């Protein structure tokens, strides 16, 4: 692991196009700004771990079809609702096609 010392306002550049800036330091809290191309994913590590753990639990190994069948029997209402519920999840791609201002770097 590369270890660098930085002062507030100073930046690290990774691979020519990812900038990591130290925005503020208060006690043991460090505010970091990340500016990266759109296709680069930036996440808090603990969120990563949370999803990883949840995925492992969701993996169906033993709970077989019996559980699902009993669920299906228990869920007539939810089942009927399915036809009307479709499409009610709304999503808004951020930024869209506007290229006016670059998005502000998310703070981590």
């Amino acid at each position: 692991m590369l270890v660098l010392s930085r002062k507030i306002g100073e930046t690290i550049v990774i691979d020519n196009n990812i900038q990591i800036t130290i925005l503020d330091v208060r006690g043991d809290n460090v505010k970091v700004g990340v500016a990266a191309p759109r296709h680069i994913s930036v996440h808090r590590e603990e969120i990563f771990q949370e999803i990883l753990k949840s995925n492992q639990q969701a993996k169906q190994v033993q709970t077989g079809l019996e559980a699902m069948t009993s669920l299906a029997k228990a869920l007539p209402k939810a089942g009927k609702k399915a036809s009307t519920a479709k499409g009610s999840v709304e999503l808004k791609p951020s930024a869209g096609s506007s290229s006016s201002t670059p998005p502000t770097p998310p703070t981590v």
Partner: protein
Amino acid sequence: MGANSPVKTIETLRFGTLDVDTSAIIQFVTPILGFEGLNEFVILDHEPDSPFNWMQSLQDPALSFVITNPAYFDIEYEFVLPEDACSILKVQSPSDILVYTLVTIPDDNPMKMTTNLLGPIVIHMQTNQAMQVILNDNKKFQTKVRLLSDASLDAFNPNESG
């Protein structure tokens, strides 16, 4: 229905041998966390009118996930698709995509099943490219959201108590 789409025959532990229309194969462009290298899946109906689907791996016969849409369970679920996902999947409009969430069904108490709202599966319907989107707000979106409240379970099973 599909005119001449080639069919791929796959082995699965749960569903036996399946003939899959290759045009229905979902390609994960970034892996489902923890399942690196398994990027091809097919989505299967559970039963007609069921709020559940299965997402079966083409590469690992034993790997299948139960998925759903939280709206079926009256769970309010709205999020802004992060820029990395828009860019990677080339999403132009919300109507380009399908959203599913993974369901965890506890062995000992299936009715206490939960779904993961923090890492939804987003599929571009035209390209069939997919990814597990990581929403960065784990206060707003949790990985263990109950699909069925205790109250709604009572309503389903009025005769069963205890």
